[in-house]
Each structure stands twice: as structure tokens, then as C-alpha cells.
């Protein structure tokens, strides 16, 4: 008799808990299902429909995808996008790694303040930032004027603006902060005396970088890649403002299909392909960088 009675509190507690879980999780999940999965599903669905100037057509199978994949412009744009994104990513890493390591190891007193300045740079409106760069890069812009003034060039460099180079420069600056922070976080979890020991044992700067810094920063680099590369790849604002015709990226192409030519079928097909690419990319990076371990490491070290 005792046993039966005393089972009750435990059983009651468990169903109590289930009720609470549901209470917490329902609204976020419903919102996501309707307004996130919904749009994504519609995107996928639309990619199978034919769209003409007259409006919505009927089911057309994989024709849209076929059109996309046989479109030479598409591949050109994709190639441009790939080169811009990859070059920008590399440029960013070249600067982000030393920046992160300087912040993590070398600055003693102002570390938090400098880190905050970094965060602040990212919080400023991207429109403003891109616009400011446009001023800088123009034929009559500051950089050209300054270079001419210093006598380094005879006439303004036209390709500084409305070119692939422009997009690379501007996006590198735009995403630098986001790329640096995860690397910084990964390095913070490392013992600084390791670099000093290496120095002490005779390793020059490049060796120190190759053999110690980069491997230790690796998880952070992968996080940076995840956070930055796909946004870079799908950039639409920056190439629209400073890319001109040669800096035309896939984001712009999709916008053109969706908003300008009304070719929603093709546009969504392109989008869906891009979606698959993004998911696969993130998945691979996550695996390669063994990000799960980084998360536990950084959360337990606080």
C-alpha cells in the first residue's frame, strides 16, 4: 500500500514537466513553422512553377532548374561570385588572424575596450558603411585624391570603384569584425605562454604562425568561415552599390529575376540551389572544425 501511494508524487512530477516543456516551446516552434518553414517551402514549391509575363503558370517540373543550369550568364555570375567571395575571405583571414592574436595575447590593458570597438564597428549600419566606402573609392574619391596628391599615381585608378576589386575591398572591411571575433575567442582559450615558449626556443614569426597559432585558432577559423562566407557569397547590397557591372553577384542576379523581370520560377530555382549550397557548406565546416568541442570549451571556460 505504501509503495503505490508513494509512487504518485514522482509520476505527477513527470507529467508536470511535460506540460512545462510544451508551454515554453510551442510559440517559438509555431512561429518558425509558419514564417520560416512556410516561406522556404513556398520557395521550393515556386521553383517548380512556370512564370511568364502573364503571371503564374502551371507545374513545370525541373524545367526551371534546367533553365538555370544551362544559363551561361548564371555560371558567369556564379564564377564571379565565387572569386569575389573566396578572395575576400582570404584577405579577411590574412588580417583577422594577426588581429585576433594581437588582441588575445599582446594587449594587456585595453583589450576589452579594443574588442568593443571591434564590435561597435560591426553594429553600424551597413548601408552607411558601404556608402562611405563608395565615397572613398571613387575617381574623385579620397583614396585616389590622396594617391595623386602624394604623387604615387598620375591619374585616378578607375577600377577602384564599380569593379570586383571594390566589392572585395568593401566586403573585407565589412565582415572583418565578424571574422575576427570567433578567432579571438578560440585563441583566448589557449595558454599565451605557448607562443612565448616557441619564441624562446628560436621560432621566427612565420614558424610561430604556421606551427602554433593557426592550428590553435583553427576552430575559430571554421566558425569565422561559417559566419562569413555564406553571407559573403549571397551579398546583394554591396555589389549593388559598388560592384558595377563587373561586380555582379548571384544575389543581384536573383534579385533581378524576382523583382525586376518577375521570373519567379527561375528566381526561386536559383535561390533553392543556393540554399542547398549554404546548408551543405555550413555542415561541412561544422564537421571539419569540430565546432561542438569549441562551444563546450568556451562555455566552460567562462
Amino acid at each position, binding site marked *: 500500500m*505504501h*509503495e503505490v501511494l*508513494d*509512487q*504518485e*508524487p*514522482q509520476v505527477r*512530477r513527470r507529467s508536470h514537466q511535460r506540460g512545462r516543456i510544451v508551454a515554453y516551446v510551442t510559440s517559438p516552434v509555431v512561429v518558425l513553422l509558419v514564417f520560416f518553414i512556410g516561406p522556404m517551402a513556398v520557395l521550393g514549391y515556386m521553383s517548380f512553377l512556370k512564370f511568364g509575363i502573364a503571371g503564374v503558370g502551371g507545374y513545370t517540373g525541373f524545367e526551371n532548374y534546367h533553365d538555370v543550369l544551362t544559363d551561361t550568364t548564371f555560371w558567369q555570375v556564379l564564377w564571379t561570385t565565387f572569386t569575389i567571395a573566396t578572395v575576400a575571405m582570404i584577405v579577411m583571414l590574412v588580417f583577422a588572424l594577426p588581429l585576433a592574436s594581437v588582441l588575445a595575447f599582446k594587449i594587456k590593458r585595453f583589450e576589452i575596450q579594443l574588442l568593443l570597438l571591434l564590435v561597435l564597428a560591426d553594429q553600424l549600419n551597413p548601408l552607411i558603411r558601404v556608402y562611405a566606402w563608395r565615397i572613398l573609392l571613387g575617381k574623385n574619391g579620397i583614396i585616389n585624391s590622396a594617391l595623386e596628391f602624394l604623387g604615387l599615381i598620375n591619374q585616378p585608378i578607375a577600377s577602384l570603384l564599380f569593379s570586383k576589386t571594390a566589392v572585395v575591398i568593401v566586403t573585407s572591411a565589412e565582415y572583418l569584425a565578424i571574422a575576427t571575433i570567433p578567432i579571438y575567442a578560440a585563441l583566448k582559450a589557449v595558454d599565451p605562454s605557448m607562443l612565448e615558449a616557441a619564441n624562446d626556443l628560436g621560432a621566427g614569426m612565420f614558424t610561430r604562425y604556421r606551427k602554433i597559432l593557426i592550428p590553435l585558432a583553427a576552430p575559430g577559423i571554421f566558425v569565422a568561415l561559417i559566419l562569413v562566407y555564406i553571407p559573403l557569397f549571397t551579398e546583394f547590397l554591396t555589389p549593388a552599390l559598388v560592384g558595377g557591372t563587373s561586380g555582379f553577384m548571384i544575389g543581384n542576379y536573383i534579385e533581378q529575376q524576382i523583382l525586376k523581370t518577375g521570373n519567379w520560377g527561375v528566381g526561386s530555382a536559383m535561390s533553392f540551389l543556393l540554399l542547398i549550397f549554404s546548408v551543405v557548406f555550413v555542415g561541412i565546416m561544422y564537421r571539419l572544425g569540430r565546432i561542438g568541442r569549441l562551444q563546450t570549451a568556451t562555455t566552460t571556460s567562462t
Partner: protein
Amino acid sequence: MRVGEVKDDADPIARGETPAIVLERVTKRFGEGTVAVNDISFTVGKSEFFSLLGPSGCGKTTTLRMLAGFETPTTGRIVIDGQDAVTLPVHKRNTNLVFQNYALFPHMTIQQNVAFGPERKRLPRKEVQERVGEVLEAVRLRDYASRYPRELSGGQQQRVALARALANRPAVLLLDEPLGALDLKLRENMQFELKRIQREVGISFVYVTHDQGEALTMSDRIAVMNLGKVEHLGAPEEVYLRPKTLFTAGFIGQANLLPGAIETQDASGLGVRLGDGSLLQAETAADGCGVGGNAMLMIRPEHLRLELERPGGDPAIPVRLKDETFQGSWARYTAETRDGVRIVLLVPSDARPDPGVFERDVWVSCKAEHAYALPQDDDVDAATAQALSPSA
């Protein structure tokens, strides 16, 4: 002769009082089949300092948490202050818990921390303030009321945790290894303080610890636990001098455990024939010892006397000394009997023998009143004895 049942006159029920806590056949089973607490029963008196003592994993913390309400027993009954507690949720119980890591609210001042409990009871503000002042005074931290926990030292935080629990005037105060994080000196001071406060306030304390010295110092009664069961429940003296089980014997203080067979039994005690042939007298014994049975002779190291010549009076065991460790006022020697049993003895520093003693045969003698026999029934006991014997 005092072989046989020992009257437990510290037990409140035996004294005819209403207990503060009654645990009746409580078992706690966790999901995968682990039994943390296995059918234990005990009572705690109204103003008693009661300790749950045992190694990690013995179930003492789980038991405490069941008293507090954070765990529910799988089977069994718990009665706190006359009320059946198993159905009572945590916040309605008349108990308060002092956490091992203090669990002070970091975003509140000491004053607010201590006031938290009384405020939840909706007491009028004046009374809350009075109570807070009272308990802070009792733990001597009145001047720190407006500070934050992070500004206080470990010992001070400890006292605030205690004050915070006492401000609620619970029927029983539960303490979960509260002194674990403190250094030795501080710990000793706090033990004294806790005992004093318990006496002053007059409520029951249920104290969980793995430090047997602590339990012996502070408790009115100790429940020695192992693997979910209570090995021995009794007053500190009894647990130390006359442990009921081998585990208790080995866990409390240092104990030499010498296996042997019971040869004689008369008014003055038991005669135990040890493995190497020596015959020793034990004046007291636990239940279950009889002529013809096997026994473990328990002798505390400080009760073994080193004899350089074969003694005439008390029975003695021939041994070879193995090594010596200087420990301040005592010197600790490990030795081995003729049949390979390891023993430890303590000799006052100023009575140490010369170094040549390691080459010779010597004897250790023991008065019958210091020898205590425990039944050794099977291989389990033998294994326990091996595990508990003082390492060389």
C-alpha cells in the same frame, strides 16, 4: 561482560520524545536501476545534532535531499515535524538546507539574502528586519548586511548561508557538507560555532559529511552509511569504540583489524586466537561473536604498546617493524605480524626506540579493554577488512 546488545540511550524514541524527523524504510532508486538509498530507517530528535557520515556515493546526500524535498523516495515514509512530508513540495516544508556551495544570491545584498525566506512567508516588514538582525548577530556578521556575497570570504559566506536558513526558524536544519571548502583552521572554528549555534537555537541539525573527525566532534548521534545502507547508528563514543560492523570500524578513525578465531568466552571477555598463534583478550564485542566463530579483532593504533622485550603481563603479538613516520607528537610505525597481517601503531615521540629496532623481533601488547571483536563471517568481510586496513 559487555558482549551483546548495547543500549542506545541517545535515541529519542528510546527516551520517549516526539521526534523531529522519522524516516521509515526509505528507498531511492534512480532510472537505470541504481539504488542510491536502500531501505533505511531512523529518527532524529527535536534538538539533536544528527550526522550522516560516509564515503562518496553512500547515499547520504540523496537522503538529505529527500528530507529537503528535492528528491522523492521511491518507497517509504518521511515524517517531518509530525507532517507526512513525501507529498509536501519543497517550498512548503519546515526544513531549510545549507548548501555545500552556499548558493547565496549574487545579485542581492547579505541583508536581502537573509530576508528572502521570511519575506516569502509574507511576514510584516518590521518582523523580517528583526529576524534578519537576530540571525546576523548570531553568526556575527551584522556589519556586513549591505555587502554583496562576492565581497565576503568563504567562511563569511558560509555563515551567511547558515543565517539565511536559520532566519526561517525551521524545525530541522539540513547541512550538506558545509565546511568542505574551508581550510583547516577555519573549519575547526566553524565546527565549534555550528555546535554552539545549534545548542543556542535548539533545533535539530541533520549534518552530512564524509569527514569522520568532524562527525565525531559535533554530533549527538551518527549514522554511518555505506552503499545506501546504514551500517551503524549511535552516539560518537559508541561508534568509535564499539562499531557494529567492519565497515564502521574501518571508516571511523584508524583501526587495526586482525583476523582470528574465538576460542574462549567467559565473564572477562573473549579469547581470540590470531593467525600467527597469539592469543589476545577482547573485553567487548559486537553482536554475532561466539565460541568457534571467526572474528576480527579491532585495536586502535594508539592502544598498541611497543614492547622491546617479550612482555610478561598482557598478551602480545610478535611483529617486525617496517617503517617509521614522524607526525609531530606521535611517531607512526607500520609493522607486520608473523602471518603477514599489517598493523599500525603510534608511539609518543619522546619514547621512540633506536633505529636498530627494525632489525629485531619486537612485540606489541594491548589491554583487553582496548580490544574489540567483530564477527567475520565470510569472504565479504575479509575483503572489506583488506580494503579498510591501514595502508603500509
